[in-house]
């Protein structure tokens, strides 16, 4: 299974109602659990990408290249001990979103050679430009309507977004 196929799988699983998916092929093993599996609240589950959880069994047998390639898809570190994980979920319930006001293509930077408008950990206020959404050659700089700290970027650069789709996860206490 190559990186592309894994990406496709993740897309399919995100769209489905599956909570968990496992595949084995020789000594390659992959297990994907969605937020729904973790029993997260509905509003969080809707917007978040699935997490890839490493399987407990022979991780060493997964080719090194795969592990590196998969990193951008699953920027989350390996799951923390159970207790902390629960606290994190509790926190997420209090998180808010920056959403897309239009259908279009999401860009994180003003142009391909420039730095991203915002990154994880940045503080934003209702005047901060957080991204561009382009539609029909109209380029829209999206200002945040909320105050807080960026916890997660929910959409990949240059990918299509729907109306009202969550773009950033924001901690209002941050």
């Amino acid at each position, binding site marked *: 299974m190559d990186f592309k196929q894994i990406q496709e799988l993740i897309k399919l699983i995100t769209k489905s109602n599956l909570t968990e998916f496992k595949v084995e092929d020789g000594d390659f093993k992959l297990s994907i659990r969605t937020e729904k599996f973790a029993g997260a609240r509905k509003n969080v589950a809707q917007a978040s990408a699935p997490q890839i959880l490493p399987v407990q069994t022979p991780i060493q047998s997964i080719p090194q290249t795969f592990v590196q390639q998969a990193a951008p898809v699953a920027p989350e570190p390996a799951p923390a001990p159970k207790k902390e994980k629960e606290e994190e979920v509790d926190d997420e319930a209090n998180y808010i979103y920056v959403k897309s*006001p*239009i*259908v279009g*293509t999401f*860009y994180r930077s003003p*142009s*391909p*050679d420039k730095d991203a408008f915002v990154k994880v950990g940045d503080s934003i206020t*209702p005047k901060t*430009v957080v991204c*561009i*959404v*382009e*539609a*029909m*050659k*109209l*380029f*829209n*700089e*999206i*200002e945040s*309507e909320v105050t807080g700290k960026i916890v997660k970027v929910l959409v990949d650069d240059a990918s*299509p977004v729907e*109306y009202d789709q969550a773009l950033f996860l924001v901690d209002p206490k941050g």
Partner: protein
Amino acid sequence: MVNNTLFVGKVFFSEKSLDSTNQFALNLIAKSNPSEGTVISAYEQRAGKGQYGREWNAQAGKNLTLSIILYPNFLQAKQQFLLSQAIALGVKDFCEQILPNEVIKIKWPNDLFINGKKVGGILIQNGLRGATIKSAVVGVGININQMDFPSSIPNVTSFQKISTIEYNLADLIPSFCKAIEIRYLQIKGKNKRNIHNEYENALFRKEENVSFELKDIGMIEGVIIGVEETGELKLWRNNKIEQFNLGQLKMKI
């Protein structure tokens, strides 16, 4: 300053050399409160903007390269294609005034074509907060006196190439501003539907069978019949109407 308009061009920045007139306009908005209709024109644009990162190269002093600051807060963010349509019609009106005997069309979504060749382009940069359009910077580039173009850009023309007349750029600016203002006031008023219809009627190769390159699929053919209000191109294909987004489709001229 322009005298024949209500607000477009009343405040006028005529700059010798800028990275891009749009960027200058965006900086003005960020730092001050420029009045609606403020126009920025540059003799030379060092890094003119096309579609996301694509450059629009114009020889210094040969062409109209300007940006207009507007506040179309009467439009919802999802209605923004109407602004693009109005500006494209405004630029078309202007071209028709100067070159009344030529066939001037809008290539979807907003390039200007004269006799089947590209003469100008539009780049709009909106500032959105929630569903409201706070500001719009409308950048327009029109080839006027440029005679030579890089061979990498085929199918391009200029006013002078068509008419063999050399134009004084400053003399063209008032009628350009007026043409844009008239169309803008139409979408601000009650003529929104007319703008949509006029735009559709002005579409390059409308009602013709046209070849397109469809992303991930390959070559397709379809008859251009119009656009959705949000801008998607409507093609008659396989005995039904199909809609396409800009990212999906590339017209083969």
